[in-house]
């Protein structure tokens, strides 16, 4: 039974030995071409760009794109931030742990960057627009530094953005005092000046690592 399967293999790869030799030659040439292509590709990826400590997501996520209201009440889109390195983070001002930790880390990273920080914007998109009014948002983000901008949108705008960057958030049922938590993504999406998604920072990445990589991104 298995023997007949073996003979099937030879059928697939061609019966006549002449044509098989030909096929071997051809496939060797194809392999060589593939290897060359791979080498060139690797060289282009590895040697060309800087090495980052943060998770590299170049090519994985789409270009920065949104239409939301900023904490001054103006409609803004991704175009308004072209030319800046953008750090996009989803959270809410009542967040007990993740958001303050991450935003403090980012704030610390901005201080380390010094004057270079003026070329960076941290966009804090609220996933709790019901409680985070523009005034609340502005008071909250301005505590972290001048590079921080609070953004707010309606359900549709928020859903579109969360689908685009494949993030989830979920409102927990409220407690007796009406307080509720919102589970959300922990990622900071980092875009270069052209709006291309480049890096991903998490809660556990320290300010030094973030500052070093932002500097590399700014220099490249």
């Amino acid at each position, binding site marked *: *039974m*298995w023997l007949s*399967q073996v003979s*099937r*293999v030879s*059928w*697939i790869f061609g019966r006549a030995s002449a044509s098989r030799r030909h096929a071997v030659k051809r496939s060797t040439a194809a392999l060589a071409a593939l290897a060359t292509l791979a080498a060139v590709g690797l060289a282009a990826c590895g040697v060309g760009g800087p090495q980052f400590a943060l998770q590299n*997501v170049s*090519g*994985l*996520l789409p270009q920065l794109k949104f239409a939301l209201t900023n904490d001054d009440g103006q409609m803004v889109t991704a175009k308004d931030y072209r030319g800046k390195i953008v750090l996009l983070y*989803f959270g809410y001002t009542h967040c007990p742990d993740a958001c303050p930790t991450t935003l403090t880390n980012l704030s610390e990273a901005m201080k380390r960057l010094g004057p270079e920080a003026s070329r960076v914007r941290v966009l804090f998109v609220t996933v*709790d627009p*019901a409680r985070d009014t523009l005034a609340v948002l502005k008071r909250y983000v301005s505590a972290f530094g001048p590079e921080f901008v609070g953004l707010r949108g309606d*359900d549709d705008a*928020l*859903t579109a953005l*969360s*689908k685009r*960057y*494949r*993030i*989830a*958030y*979920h*409102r*927990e049922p409220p407690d007796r005092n009406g307080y509720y938590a*919102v*589970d*959300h*993504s*922990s*990622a900071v999406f980092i875009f270069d000046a052209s709006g291309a998604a480049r890096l*991903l920072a*998490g809660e556990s990445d320290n300010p030094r690592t973030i500052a070093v990589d932002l500097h590399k991104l700014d220099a490249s």
Partner: protein
Amino acid sequence: MRSAPMHSILFYLAPWELSPTVILVCAASAVLYARGLGELARRGERIGFWRPFSFFLGLALDYAVLQTYYDFLAQHMFWVHRLQHLVLHHLAPVLIVLASPGRAMWAGVPFGWRAAGARLCRERRGFRWIPRFGARLFMLIQHPAIAPVIFVGLIFFWLTPAVHFGAMLNLQRYLAMNWSMGVDGLLFWWLMLAPRSLQGSAALGYASRILIVCLIAVPQILLGAYIALHSTVLFDVYGICGRAWAIAPLTDQELGGLLTWIPAAMMSGVAMLIILRRLLLEESEAQSARKAAAAIG
């Protein structure tokens, strides 16, 4: 996911990310099969209830895990994702293959199209290679030593943490992952479960099939157990992108591992029973044929 008011049932039934390809393929399959059933009935062939039921159930399951709110949950919860792949790679294809829908679907293709396609492949130089190349490719991936390697290899490939990370973050890779699981499931279970008489030149003996379904269970059990019992988080993408609801990351991973381990391996047991039934059925048919021949001779 959206907080405020309760959503209507339509919200949960609507595609989370609309894929025209999935909708088109599912709709076309359903239409072809339904048309074919009618056509066969006109020719006096009766298919009965259970085969169409099995086909439509499998198709509906595939559609449901790909084009409803379920897809959102699968993107943001590891164990829901594992259940999605259990449906795409194991359950739905087995149901579809059990219906042996090929004949009916072929009969459902409008006659004019069939004739035009045959003419094109026969007469036009540029098209002649298609059926030959298609048959060879099919024989290659359906080779009894290659098909199970592809089947198990795909599970391992997409569960490699770095690959999984990219697949969950990038829409194109996510689609490629789900398509590869669905299509490979159909190919593999067809090779394992279809009656030999319908397999043509790809026909595989029942003993080999039983050996193969036993063998594929082993790596699935090992991988599932490895994931379920691992004490650190292997797939951090769910934490990074946010889970669909609050659950401890390790609990999520444990459930996902168990789903990769137990139901997937149980499918091999089910498949073995189906193969044995086919074997006995064919044996008894052959026996009665021999008796009939002896009576005549």
